[in-house]
């Protein structure tokens, strides 16, 4: 697999002596849980949406039949909700501890979109079209913020409708039955959106685009090389350098073991995801 591009990148990586922490251990653990439960929900849910196709039946069979698949789906969903709640709690507790609510909603490290994101979109598209320099991004780019809020929105829409469908007797104590029709519709449509988005756009942006191919292990190792940080997150690098805070986030290079682990886990996720997309898109076309 050592194509010239990969070899070149590896050479660059080893040349860059310095690494910085981008994601801490809790971030990485949460992403891992989110990733596993998301794929779990996707693989066990997609057979219902695509029930007309033979592969859906085969997939449900591989997962132990649609009943077992239903159990896996609910377990994954419950874990995902716990991860989500834990993340939100962590964000708020951090702000509370630092007594800095402004940093949470309006700063260079905030997840809340700001004016720079708007400018970045325009500049990035101009760069795509060969009409300008590539914008210099800060800690979180506009597409990363979109991914983040898409998960938030999805959590409420898919999670909420999923809970309605999971506990219909409880909810029918105070809700009319037709909400289950709405819930079935939005659960499936939003799931298609999420699955389609994560397994194509997110994978491309984060991993398979030519600069990163076959994948970016940062979410598994937590470490980003100085070279990559300058290239992809110049604003953040400069900001940290100016403030003399670079050394605080400096880290040892990722160990080969962790790197290999990341490649295996991430690669499996990418393969499963892309296979799901191929099946879904194939079903639409054929």
């Amino acid at each position: 697999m050592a194509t010239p591009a990969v070899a070149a990148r590896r050479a660059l990586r080893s040349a860059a002596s310095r690494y910085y922490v981008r994601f801490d251990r809790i971030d990485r653990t949460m992403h891992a849980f989110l990733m596993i439960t998301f794929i779990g929900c996707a693989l066990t849910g997609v057979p219902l949406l695509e029930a007309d196709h033979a592969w859906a039946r085969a997939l449900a069979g591989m997962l132990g039949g649609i009943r077992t698949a239903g159990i896996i789906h609910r377990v994954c969903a419950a874990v995902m909700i716990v991860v989500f709640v834990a993340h939100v709690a962590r964000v708020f507790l951090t702000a509370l501890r630092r007594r800095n609510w402004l940093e949470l909603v309006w700063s260079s490290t905030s997840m809340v979109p700001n004016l720079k994101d708007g400018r970045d979109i325009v500049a990035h598209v101009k760069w795509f079209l060969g009409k300008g320099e590539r914008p210099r991004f800060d800690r979180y780019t506009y597409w990363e913020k979109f991914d983040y809020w898409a998960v938030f929105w999805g959590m409420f829409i898919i999670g909420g409708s999923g809970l309605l469908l999971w506990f219909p007797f409880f909810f029918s104590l105070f809700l009319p039955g037709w909400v289950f029709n709405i819930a079935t519709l939005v659960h499936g449509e939003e799931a298609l959106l999420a699955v389609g988005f994560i397994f194509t756009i997110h994978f491309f942006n984060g991993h398979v685009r030519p600069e990163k191919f076959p994948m970016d292990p940062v979410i598994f190792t937590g470490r980003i090389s100085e070279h990559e940080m300058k290239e992809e997150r110049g604003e953040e690098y400069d900001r940290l350098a100016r403030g003399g805070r670079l050394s605080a986030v400096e880290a040892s290079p990722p160990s080969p073991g962790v790197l290999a682990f990341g490649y295996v886990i991430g690669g499996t996720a990418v393969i499963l995801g892309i296979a799901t997309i191929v099946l879904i898109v194939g079903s639409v076309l054929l």
Partner: protein
Amino acid sequence: MRTTMRAVLCALAGTAALLLAPWADGAGPNDTCLACHGDASAKAASGKSVAVDPAVFSGSVHGSLNLPCTGCHTDVSADKIPHGPQKPVECATCHDKAAQQYKSTIHGLARAQGNAVAATCANCHGTHDIKRVADAGSKVSRANLEATCGACHGNTDVIRRANLPGGNVVAMYHDSIHGRALNQKTSAKDAVPVCTTCHGAHDMRPRADPQSRVARANIPDTCGGCHMNVKARWEQSQHGKLRQAHVMQAPGCTDCHSAHSIQRHDLDQWKLAAITACGTCHADRLDTYRDTFHGQVTRLGDARVATCDSCHGAHEVLPESDPMSRVSAQNRLATCQGCHPKANANFVQYDPHPNRHVREAGMLLFYTGKFMDLLLLGVFAFFGLHTVLWFYRSLKVVREQRAKARAVPPSENS
């Protein structure tokens, strides 16, 4: 009574033949014939075997009556032995009523139209080995009928060449609930229908004949001959009422159950197949059912969630507007509670056939569907284009970098 009369007549004919036969000398009536034909290797000039096993013939109904060979082979004379080719045997000489009925059967009609393979008397009853129908050894006894009819209707080669309707109907019957009950020697084996129970024997008329037992209009009566209660319930259903109003497209027994592949109603395979059967007429209802959890799970082959009849009933199906219907406003809660014991009045406001594409079916569902469509379209259009453009640019950049790296002299690179 009629059988006794026939036996007496046959015995008389036999005796007369015996008395008139010039070669009669106190031995068996057929000894002269069997002198040649009794030899197992006896062949006609054409090479065709003309052997007759004396034991088989004496065990047949005709043999037991001591009928002479010439009773059927009427143009053979002792004056000319060995004799040449003979006229075909005329069963109608004695069995005139059966022969008359045969003419209106599908086999008789086909023969009259020049079909040379349609079954005649001997195909079903045999020749020298004919036994009484009640005799277990008869080719047309209940136990043997599958094999006898199956000689043609269970033989894929014959079915293909003669273009027999329905395909391998005997194989289908064999695997059906009726065939299984017959072959598994259950207590029902003496009651379950065999081929002739539904099709008749000498009144086996073509389906298009209004007098046929299997004509569309007569099927409920044919099946109802055994399944009286089911027929009575069906007659009260929307399907039965439509039939009484002469709407012949309304389903009778075989439209849902099939004719020859009838399955137990509690088999998953049948429950799932029944959904498709209902959908052949109620296509729009099938579509909307498939959009629900019930429809998706059954589509994946699990029959433990609601299928059509779980809610609508089977033979007693009635429109929602009928107070007697299982899905009427009055009965709906009880019907849902059949599977969902904790269901309440709110719960049953769920629409088990939601149509998200029709505004009248529910404004909120319709507009939610439209919103979701737009959301998906918007996100995928924006990020799809974004990704394609990005990919194109990145590829170019990476290629340029690679070209630059190659341009650097090797000494500096290493």
